[in-house]
């Protein structure tokens, strides 16, 4: 009797579960879709799910306002990775130090105030007060506003100055407003309706936008740092656009006819960094050996699910300042040869030099899930040659590398975010650079970068940048591994989504829904 009771209880429980499933599938999804359609007919709304949470809406400190189309910059970078006019119509400089910008006419901020040179000046003045890194990048000495003409004098010749203004933090806001953290006022097609820090931003359209009326009425930007959650939100209908869903789900999403996926190469590069201050790694032959162990093609095909291109240098080859990279071969024999040239002997499965076994630690972080996997591949290959590599997964990679003594690190950075080589070279290879984690001062590289910083003429700059990259390449100061693609998936009802290579522009006036 007792048994029967248990059984019947279990049976009824299963029945209940089943009925709960079927009713939700049967009733909810079609009517839900209808509701959504009716809604979108009157009110064109779109939900954009991304991986970058925003703690503030202050455009001078956070990138989201530019990405969300709230604010705009004087200069923008186009799909060919060239800079082009945006809020400024043209600019010029004789000496690279005194810059004249013509501000576009007939633009109003979202509060109705007119955009003129004085407003731009006020915006920059606030920017360099709140952001030290922008202050250091722009090096503005003085500004003079006259009607629609803004003259900026920099502390030293800064040939890349217009490209520095592409930076999302250099966005123009109405500095006479307050509450920048919640509701900044810009010139873009959308303005903030409501903002919950770290959770979501609701945008409404700005009907008087200077470049034409936005197609959407409102946009909701939400954040989730879990790639699988971003995939699932798209499938369940919680999101219309999912930025960087799980790379492993690409095949599944491509098989779903109601979902379109869009892939674009990015100007980002995944790198293996070497701390050349370390005794072992100061030897270029060891660095060459490690480079030869990087199976770039296999990384592209498996870890990156073909959503990447093998990288042999820091910049995408399409950039004018990228030299013809020498294609580096994956070869364990070659790695072994370099290792032996570096003075190591492989005894009993251990690579030893002067009797000491070689042990290295690679620092990695899981924000980009492929980096720990690349580290594991390197670890496994190094093991074959008797090199012991430990993996350390850390949370805050920048802080860790700056403050700790490290050997190797996997890192990912946008090497040419503004279509100019000087950002990467200065921040990674110059003393005081934000990503010069090994505090390297290279004797032959430093003067070239210095010369680049003082050179205005474009061809000469390209020449110098190529020279610098060639030195980095010859000396294996880092190993470029892959250029990852930007992978975006959206419902087929979304119209005119453009996956931007620079990752700067996402919500635009042209974006719409059926």
């Amino acid at each position, binding site marked *: 009797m007792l048994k029967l009771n248990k059984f019947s209880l279990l049976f009824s429980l299963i029945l209940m579960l089943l009925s709960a499933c079927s009713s939700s599938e049967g009733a909810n999804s079609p009517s839900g879709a209808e509701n959504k359609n009716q809604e979108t007919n009157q009110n064109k709304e779109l939900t954009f799910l991304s991986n970058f949470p925003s703690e503030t809406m202050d455009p001078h400190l956070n990138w989201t306002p530019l990405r969300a189309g709230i604010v705009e910059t004087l200069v923008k970078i186009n799909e060919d990775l060239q800079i082009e006019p945006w809020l400024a119509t043209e600019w010029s400089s004789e000496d690279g130090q005194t810059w004249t910008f013509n501000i576009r006419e007939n633009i109003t901020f979202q509060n109705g105030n007119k955009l003129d040179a004085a407003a731009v000046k006020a915006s920059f003045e606030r920017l360099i007060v709140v952001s030290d890194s922008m202050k250091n990048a722009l090096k503005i000495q003085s500004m003079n506003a006259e009607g629609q003409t803004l003259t900026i004098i920099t502390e030293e010749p800064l040939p890349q100055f217009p490209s520095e203004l592409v930076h999302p933090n250099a966005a123009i806001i109405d500095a006479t407003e307050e509450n920048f953290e919640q509701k900044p006022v810009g010139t873009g097609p959308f303005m903030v309706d409501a903002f919950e820090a770290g959770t979501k931003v609701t945008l409404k359209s700005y009907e008087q936008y200077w470049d034409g009326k936005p197609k959407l009425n409102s946009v909701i930007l939400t954040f989730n740092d879990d*790639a*699988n959650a971003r*995939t699932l939100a798209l499938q369940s209908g919680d999101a219309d656009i999912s930025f960087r869903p*799980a*790379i*492993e*789900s690409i*095949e*599944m999403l491509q098989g779903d006819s109601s979902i379109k996926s869009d892939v674009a190469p990015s100007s980002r590069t995944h790198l293996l960094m070497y701390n050349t201050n370390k005794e072992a790694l100061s030897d270029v032959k060891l660095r060459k050996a490690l480079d030869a162990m990087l*199976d770039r093609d*296999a*990384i592209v*095909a*498996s*870890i990156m699910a073909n959503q990447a291109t093998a990288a042999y240098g820091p910049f995408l080859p399409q950039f004018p300042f990228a030299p013809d990279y020498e294609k580096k071969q994956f070869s364990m024999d070659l790695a072994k040869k370099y290792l032996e040239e570096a003075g190591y002997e492989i005894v009993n499965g251990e690579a030893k030099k002067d009797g000491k076994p070689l042990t290295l630690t690679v620092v990695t972080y*899981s924000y980009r*899930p492929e980096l*720990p*996997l690349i*580290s*594991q*591949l390197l*670890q*496994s*290959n190094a*093991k074959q040659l008797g090199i012991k590599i430990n*993996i*350390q*997964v850390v949370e805050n990679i920048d802080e860790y590398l700056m403050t700790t003594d490290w050997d190797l690190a996997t890192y990912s950075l946008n090497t040419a975010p503004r279509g100019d080589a000087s950002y990467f070279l200065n921040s990674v290879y110059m003393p005081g650079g934000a990503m010069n984690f090994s505090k390297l001062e290279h004797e032959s590289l430093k003067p070239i970068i210095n010369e680049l910083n003082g050179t205005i003429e474009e061809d000469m700059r390209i020449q110098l940048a190529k020279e610098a990259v060639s030195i980095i390449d010859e000396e294996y100061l880092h190993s470029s591994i892959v250029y990852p693609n930007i992978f975006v998936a959206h419902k087929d009802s979304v119209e005119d989504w453009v996956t931007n290579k620079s990752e700067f522009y996402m919500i635009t006036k042209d974006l719409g829904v059926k």
Partner: protein
Amino acid sequence: MIVVRPNNVTKNIKRPQFKLFGMIVLLGLIIILTLVAPLIAPYDPTEVQLTERLKPMSSENLLGTDHMGRDILSRILVGAQTTVGTSILVIVLALSIGLPVGLISGYIGGALDRFFMRIVDALLAFPDFIIAIVLSGLLGPGMFNLVLALVVVKWVSYARLVRSTVISENQKEYIAVAKINGLSSIKILSKHMIPHVVGNLVVYASLDLGKVILVIASLSYIGLGAQPPTPEWGAMLNEGRNFFHNAPQLMYIPGIAIMLVVLILNLLGDLLRDRLDVKNK
């Protein structure tokens, strides 16, 4: 006269002793498998072979391969050393702190007892898991720190358990007789107290072992425990998470492994309690 009828045979098998025996055999099997794992694992559990990734179950790879082309069976076997082995280590360490503290605290009493018990109270006031997360978060991820964090959390309940048994035994007449006869405290503790405590401790430890396995797997799942590429069941679950659409075996195999071991330990703990617990006799 007792007539042996056939259905008595089946009754006998259902007796706790037989179940207990079965469970002990299963646990023994797991421990043996754990100990010899590196010898019987068909492949190197950390060897990456990207051409062999995400293979389904086959005769070459009985449980398939993971996203780095590593043999899942080998990883489960060697991973048992990390998961089960570390859990046993945690329990042993927790016991070796909790037992003496409980004995001394319960037997001597007074200020020393109050001192230890306030520490125990303070630690028991928080959920285990939260303290373990905070500690391993502060100390940094890694197995050593994880063990340290868990021992800090776990010893208190053993101390409590031992202390209460010692206090209740201490009031009994035979202890008084032993004291009158001039038996030293050490002798009383080792001859009379420990045998009384052991039963409870074994029951508690076997139930607790299951919990510790779950905590270790959970902490590794959130990245605070085993670091890649160390095979560990919770970490394997975490790594498999990204592939659950295409290769669900990456998640359900370590999941089943955790479930089986914890289930066996819990059943064993229950049966041991039925047999050893004084209250149920």
